[in-house]
């Protein structure tokens, strides 16, 4: 018992009509990194919110360092040394690092006129950095910093509370690139050495092996099991099975033979500062994968193929014919559709319902010649799309904002399918999507590629390696690797993506 930083016993929590937590036991050893896993709706965030005082539990006991406590308010959690860093670092962009760290705790007094002593703040920040040596410049405005540095500032803010001993990191890596994840790992090591216990929530299962000491899987509001990472012979598939509760038939769908029919080809496509001389060739029945880190240019490349950006030079050929593509309307004419990487911003109209979103790119199909919408046909077509894609929703008139990430992504894909194009480009198709929905989306993409040309661009190397037939690796806007998947390896792709292959050539 002595060694437990936190012990939660029999935690229960219900919301109207749903039992979110049905008696969960969870314990955290001192100085360990404990991964908390589960698909969306399994109860992870409810558990964390109870721990940080946002929700109050219906039943159960919480012990911190062996002492029974009641946490009813976020402030109580804070005073007990529990700090949470959310997915999207909550920082004020125009403030410099140390101002963000001590936001709201700048001065002793609590009056509006309490004077902020910058020198004192800087010293406090310096002392914090000595204790937790992160590589971050605290005197720069946060908007000039990289994502990992923002994350570091959010973590430092959590640690600025002297007594912080339990740190919750909620999906810290979902917005980080590979190199940054490595840095984060080092930072977590530093925290461990200072005796801080970490609860680590993630969707990326392979991270667990690098970062965590133990992991706990939640399913349907229950603890399915807690395992030591190095003790059991587990792999990501087994963990996924635990999370899903049924045997994963296969995460990644079977590959098919590809045909020779070339549908899309680019020659020397260039966009200054983003990518240079990109030559791609996509065949019917094949999935072309583009792997690159965030900032490698794959985002701009995809958008150029969809007419959002206009490349400075180069040519695009569709079925052998050169096409002119300067706008989304041109792309529409050319039969191209992009399922964008940031679905909340680029993909969906969150406040509208599934019907509205599904038909948005092909309104002509449900409209009369005068432009009047045939509502019944729209509903029928949308229902068919919901069945086809397996979108779980009470009805076709459900607001997209109220769906889970995976279902939202399916709605955006549905919009693309409904638009009936020849070439589909998926950018980061499974970001923020849980494991269960992930394999469904992969299956869909594979199914689609039988009829159409498909490009998948992602910063998740394993994703590209596992579902694509041909891989192109982008590094700083240059194509550094261009091979059929069966002639390359995951580590080779990763290496080229990270370094551009310079080390490999040595």
């Amino acid at each position, binding site marked *: 018992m002595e060694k437990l930083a936190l012990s939660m016993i029999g935690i229960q929590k219900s919301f109207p*009509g*749903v039992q979110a937590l049905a008696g969960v036991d969870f314990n955290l050893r001192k100085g360990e990194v404990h991964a908390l896993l589960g698909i969306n709706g399994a109860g992870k965030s409810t558990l964390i919110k109870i721990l940080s005082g946002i929700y109050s539990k219906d039943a159960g006991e919480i012990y911190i360092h062996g002492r029974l406590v009641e946490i009813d308010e976020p402030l109580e959690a804070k005073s007990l040394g529990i700090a949470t860093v959310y997915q*999207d670092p909550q920082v004020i962009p125009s403030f410099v690092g140390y101002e963000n760290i001590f936001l709201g705790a700048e001065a002793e007094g609590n009056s509006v006129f309490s004077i902020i002593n910058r020198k004192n703040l800087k010293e406090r920040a310096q002392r914090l950095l000595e204790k937790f040596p992160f590589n971050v410049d605290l005197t720069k405005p946060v908007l000039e910093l990289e994502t990992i540095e923002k994350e570091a500032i959010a973590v430092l803010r959590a640690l600025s509370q002297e007594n912080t001993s339990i740190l919750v990191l909620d999906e810290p890596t979902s917005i980080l690139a590979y190199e940054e994840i490595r840095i984060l790992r080092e930072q977590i090591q530093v925290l461990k050495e200072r005796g801080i216990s970490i609860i680590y929530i993630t969707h990326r299962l392979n991270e667990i092996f690098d970062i965590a000491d133990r992991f706990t899987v939640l399913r349907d509001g229950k603890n399915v099991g807690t395992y030591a990472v190095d003790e059991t012979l587990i792999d990501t598939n087994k963990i996924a099975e635990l999370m899903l509760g049924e045997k994963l038939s296969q995460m990644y769908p079977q590959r098919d033979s590809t045909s020779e029919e070339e549908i899309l080809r680019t020659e020397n496509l260039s966009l200054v500062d983003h990518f240079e001389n990109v030559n791609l060739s996509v065949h019917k029945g094949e999935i072309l994968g583009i792997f690159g880190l965030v900032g490698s240019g794959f985002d701009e490349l995809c958008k150029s193929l*969809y007419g*959002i950006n206009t490349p400075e030079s180069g040519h695009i050929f569709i079925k052998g014919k050169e096409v002119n593509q300067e706008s*989304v*309307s041109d*792309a*529409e004419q050319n039969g191209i559709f*992009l399922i*964008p990487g940031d679905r*909340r*911003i*680029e*993909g*969906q*109209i*969150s*406040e*509208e319902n599934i019907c*509205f979103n599904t*038909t*948005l*790119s092909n*309104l*002509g199909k449900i*409209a009369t010649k*005068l*432009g*009047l*919408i045939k*509502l019944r046909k729209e509903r029928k077509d949308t229902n068919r799309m919901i069945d086809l894609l397996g979108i779980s929703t*009470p*009805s076709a008139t*459900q*607001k997209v*904002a*109220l769906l889970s990430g995976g279902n939202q992504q399916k709605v955006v894909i549905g*919009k693309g399918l409904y*638009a009936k194009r020849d070439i589909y480009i998926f950018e980061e198709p499974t970001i923020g999507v849980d494991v269960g929905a992930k394999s469904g989306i992969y299956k869909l993409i594979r199914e689609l590629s039988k009829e159409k040309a498909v490009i998948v661009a992602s910063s998740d190397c394993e994703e590209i390696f596992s579902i694509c037939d041909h891989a192109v690796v982008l590094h700083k806007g240059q194509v550094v690797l261009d091979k059929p998947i069966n002639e390359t390896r995951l580590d080779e792709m990763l290496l080229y993506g990270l370094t551009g292959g310079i080390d490999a050539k040595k």
Partner: protein
Amino acid sequence: MQRNRKQFMSFNRDYLSVLIFLGVLAIVMIALTLLNEYFLTINNLLRALKHLSIFSLTALGLTFVVTVGHSDMSFHFLSCFAGMTMSFFIGKGMAPLPSILIGLLAGASVGVINGITVGKFKLPDMIATIAIGSVAWGMSYLYSNGNYIYENFLTSGIIQFSDGRLFEIPYPVLYLFGFYILAYVVLHHTKSGRAFYAVGGNRVAARFSGIKVEKYIFIAFIICAVLASFSNLLLTASQGNGNVKGGLVLLMPAWASVYVGVSIFKKPSVVGTFLGSFLISIMQNGFTLMNAPFYIMDLIVGLTLIAAIIISKTEIKQKASVGKISKTNEIEAA
């Protein structure tokens, strides 16, 4: 089971806000009836309807701009320009119909400038439209140095534009239903309507879906300008003179009407705007009957607008906690 219940509850909530609105409307009407015996008479209700017809058309135009996620602070200014342009040509002896058309054209041209400035060049809508509107208002002084224009008003037949009747129905009431039905079909039952909502809901996603965002913002500003101009032309005709300040009264009631509509249906809509205009018009009519000074009306309309905004925002906040709406979207919208 649980899903059904959830759906039922959300249905109930939408339904509830309509009921609350009808309750408020009933209370206002009962109060006005008790305060003034003349309120609930056919003659007065017809007068209220005519007032409604004029003001609610401005609100209808504004609904389009709010639907695409923008604000227009120029429509009252530019409607003065339209009104004075029409009055000028009436004064010069031109027939009513061409004068009306030239007036509308004048207002529409300012709407075009709004649309280009905000849609194409993406300048901040509030500031840009205030500036453009001020210029338009300034121009309306040029025709008569800011003096009233009376010439030919009684003889040209322009008064018929607002006082005429078809089968006993006042023309403005016909305009009201004509424009509202047309707008309802366009906004809620056509491809273009979808596009307006898509642009207002998420501009970036609309663009990625192949919708010509700039075009719809442009059109919305023109619709707003034309309908505000139309309202002020009616107002000018019914008052029998051209007044440079005539259209300024359109600003607050239009905003209040649109936002009362948003507070009922959670988003701008033709029916919502109509209900909003109805409430505002009834209140204005009641206060006029009681000989309340004009600033009391401004006060009441202003308070209604604030209340409506608060109600519509609270609703969005509640949704945000359930649906996890992305922060970036809100920033985008702002």
